[in-house]
């Protein structure tokens, strides 16, 4: 349902993509890995419609996106929430029609689904990093997006919190079946979460697609013991 066709994009003096073609199915989770500066975040911005390709086309559900829209949710790493709004203020931000009781109830249930009941009126400065990212997720999901684009959302969290967030994302995705394109530096995270991994190796403008062979639902410690995990991991490392 995301179709990328002959996508080309360059920053002044630096070509990032040249004739990239790929597609992502509805409900699929795809991770994008690669060395820094290689264009991972750029790809997300192109998918979101914030950057325009110099050539080629991006279609989501058959429609060419030219501007950021509500069908696509964005989650960034360190700039997550609006610091001046409370938790519920952030979650309600996307709702056009004020805060009717029905909307509020929905927001509260979203806040509950990310495990933050009781924190509705707190400011982001009063929350931990992990809690802030949960609110970011709830906010993005408040609009029922078809696609969620995430740019290293868990990069600044400690290991345990990161794992908890990964499981939360998986359970929400399972519930609502949205497509995820996730940029990450963490190979293990990519393998754990994704159906496929797009690697952007340095020194080329190609995209290497790697299928993750482990069936879902996955158990973190379990898949690490699978034969093929190490091979897959090494392959991805080589592609960095």
């Amino acid at each position, binding site marked *: 349902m995301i179709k990328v066709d002959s996508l080309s994009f360059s920053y002044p003096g630096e070509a990032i993509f040249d004739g990239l073609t790929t597609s992502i199915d509805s409900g699929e989770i795809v991770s994008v890995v690669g060395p820094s500066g290689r264009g991972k975040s750029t790809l997300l911005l192109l998918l979101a419609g914030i950057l325009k390709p110099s050539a080629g086309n991006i279609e989501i559900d058959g429609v060419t996106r030219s501007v*950021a*829209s509500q069908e696509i949710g964005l989650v*960034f790493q360190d*700039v997550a929430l609006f610091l001046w709004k409370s938790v519920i203020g952030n979650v309600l931000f996307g709702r056009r029609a004020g805060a009717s009781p029905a909307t509020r109830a929905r927001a509260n249930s979203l806040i509950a689904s990310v495990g933050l009941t009781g924190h509705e009126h707190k*400011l982001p*400065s*009063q929350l931990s990093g992990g809690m802030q990212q949960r609110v970011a997720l709830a*906010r993005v999901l408040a609009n029922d997006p078809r696609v969620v684009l995430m740019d290293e959302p868990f990069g600044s969290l400690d290991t345990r919190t990161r794992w908890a967030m990964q499981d939360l994302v998986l359970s929400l995705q399972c519930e609502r079946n949205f497509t995820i394109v996730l940029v990450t530096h963490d190979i293990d995270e990519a393998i754990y979460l994704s159906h496929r991994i797009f690697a952007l190796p340095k020194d080329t403008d190609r995209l290497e697609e790697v299928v993750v062979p482990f069936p879902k639902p996955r158990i973190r410690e379990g898949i690490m013991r699978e034969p093929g995990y190490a091979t897959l991991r090494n392959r991805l490392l080589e592609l960095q």
Partner: protein
Amino acid sequence: MLSLWVIASHFADKGRLFPTPWEVAAALSDMLVTGELVRDVVASARRALVGFVVGGTLGILMGYATGRNRLLDDSFGSLFQMLRPLPPISLVPLLILWLGINEPAKYVLVSFGVFFPVWINTHQGTRAVDPRYIWMAQSLGASRQKLAFEVILPAALPMIVSGLRTSIGVAFFCLVAAELAGAMDGVVFRMNLSQLAFRVDRLIAGLLVLGSISLISDTLFVRFINVAFPWLNGPGNAHDAKSA
């Protein structure tokens, strides 16, 4: 500092041009008792406040406009930069010509002075807003209005507040020009008269009063900001509040 003042005024051989602290205190209490001080403070504070509100509001609106819109920035930005260093006192004859000698001309003068620090801080704060906030807001379906009032202006608020705070002092500074012509009351007006009559004690008393109102205004402003925008002091702000 007080003891140095006392020592200096005792040894100064300038006749009565260097009054002692108690002479100034006596002048101050005299002005208070006659009711003159209260009238003057009210008049000056009114002019400073109106100018602050008008100039500050216009500064924020224009700063947002030029910060967000390249065309507006090109048209108005350089014009404002040219006008910015003009001392308010140089505008007095022009304002008298256009607006006359009554209070509106004074309000305009103070607004003129207040406008520029607020404009440039809002402009820079708006431009410095992390684009990711804007992308997120757009992806969440924010209208232009919502984007302006619920994302960009709050994100730029640390710098806007900094500009407003600077302009409090500027507002009082502009009173020097504003109370030069067509005024019959006001702290600066009274200081001018005291200067003409060689009443240096009253002149210094006026200076102290002016400084005090400015300080009180600043303190009240900071309190107000803390209450209205509690999130400004929390950790993890988007930017540091650096003034232009």
